[in-house]
């Protein structure tokens, strides 16, 4: 069934975006959300026809509305913007179909690796130590980084069958084609939502006598709203991160220098977008009000927002300054015992690929000019 929700008049701009982004997380009963500008209403498609379910849901939506009424959404600051160079009003239809396959062709794999190679070069410029870490993140690490508290909606936990002969025999002899869920035991570990926590673990409980830079790439996992997944938003994706730990001024400066390099690369590739201040999608409403606002106030997070030919935007990189938050959790100090600061730059490689294909084309022969531009570019090289 469909339901409409009238929105408060001041739900515009960032507040409206935040509301529409949040709404699907209220319940999995919601299977689609649309904003109707003419009536200033949100239209919800529900996977049920039960009025009683809707009544419960309505209360939850009201709570979100009330929270957002009290939430200050500071307008984004724009650092770089080349969207004026692209005539967005006459953008042609997407050059590629919405991706529905669950594989990449060989050409796409090569292009993805080429794009990642460019980001790897950025990391190399900062003399990053290159790392490859396990996909699993330990419970101990998670309890320090607190990701599961800040973003529980994204977490994937790992479970397995206990090594117990009787239990395993029972599965084999059962008529059921699947394994009953209650037979599984939680391993206490998680599928990594990002790479950087491994780096903190590696240098945890250490006194560093110089700044350090790491870069790693790997498969990351986030439990997304299923009906919102597409080639930009996936449950499983490849991420590269550059993590840097040192004194505050150096960390801030490094973040800015990498941001400049990445923007230059983005423009040289012929892509369209902006770098803007951003806030994380904190799940809990009090965090959304407080932590989200403070992030914007302190310019703690910037995002490189790519604009597609169909008018959609997608964050393909983020530039984060974590102050001493994670160094405190992992006990990373300088030689005098003072907590160090840290930052990280994260690249969603699949999103770079999807952005490139959308903007440049899906045929390998269309890619050569953009690649030639890069080969001629002194900064990138």
């Amino acid at each position, binding site marked *: 069934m469909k339901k409409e929700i009238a929105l408060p008049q001041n739900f515009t701009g960032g507040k409206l975006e935040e509301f529409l982004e949040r709404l699907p997380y209220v319940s999995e009963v919601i299977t689609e959300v649309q904003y109707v500008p003419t009536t200033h209403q949100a239209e919800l498609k529900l996977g049920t026809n039960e009025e009683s379910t809707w009544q419960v849901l309505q209360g939850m939506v009201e709570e979100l509305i009330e929270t957002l009424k009290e939430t*200050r959404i*500071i*307008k984004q600051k724009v650092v770089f913007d080349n969207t004026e160079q692209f005539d967005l009003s006459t953008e042609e239809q997407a050059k590629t179909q919405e991706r529905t396959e669950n594989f990449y062709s060989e050409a796409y794999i090569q292009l993805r690796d080429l794009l990642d190679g460019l980001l790897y070069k950025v990391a190399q410029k900062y003399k990053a130590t290159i790392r490859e870490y396990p996909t699993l993140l330990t419970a101990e690490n998670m309890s320090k980084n607190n990701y599961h508290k800040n973003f529980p909606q994204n977490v994937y936990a790992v479970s397995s069958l206990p090594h117990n002969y009787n239990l395993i025999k029972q599965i084999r002899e059962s008529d059921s084609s699947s394994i009953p869920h209650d037979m599984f035991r939680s391993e206490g570990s998680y599928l990594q939502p990002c790479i950087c926590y491994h780096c903190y673990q590696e240098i945890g409980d250490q006194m560093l006598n110089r700044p350090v830079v790491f870069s790693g790439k790997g498969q990351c996992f986030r439990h997304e709203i299923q009906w919102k997944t597409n080639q930009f938003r996936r449950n499983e994706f490849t991420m590269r991160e550059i993590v840097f730990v040192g004194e505050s001024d150096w960390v801030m400066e490094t973040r800015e220098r990498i941001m400049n390099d990445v923007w230059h690369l983005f423009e040289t590739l012929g892509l369209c977008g902006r770098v803007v201040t951003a806030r994380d999608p904190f799940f809990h409403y009090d965090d959304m*009000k*407080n*932590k989200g*606002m*403070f992030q*914007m*106030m*302190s*310019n703690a997070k910037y995002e490189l927002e790519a604009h597609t030919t169909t008018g959609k935007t997608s964050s393909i990189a983020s530039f984060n300054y974590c102050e001493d938050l994670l160094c405190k959790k992992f006990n990373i100090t300088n030689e005098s015992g003072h907590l160090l600061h840290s930052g990280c730059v994260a690249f969603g490689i699949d999103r770079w690929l999807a952005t490139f294909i959308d903007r440049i084309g899906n045929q390998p022969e269309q890619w050569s000019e953009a690649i030639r531009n890069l080969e001629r570019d002194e900064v990138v090289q």
Partner: protein
Amino acid sequence: MSVLESKQRVQEEVILLIQKILNKEVELSADTPLAEAGLDSMKIIQLISNFERQYDIEFEDDDLIVDNFVNTSKIVDLLTTKYRVGA
């Protein structure tokens, strides 16, 4: 009331508000970093919302930067100069 007296009064009110949020008495000079006094990011947000309520103002987005709230001197300057608090 002179500008100086007015600023002094606002300074005292700001300190009182900070103490209320910290739930303890603290010695604060005009340039004591508020972070050192125990005002973390969450408490700064609380402080901002208290200012808006107490003085019936709404900070403009451009003024909501951490640098404006690092010590009482910066806060008092912002409140008295731009938002005419105590005028």
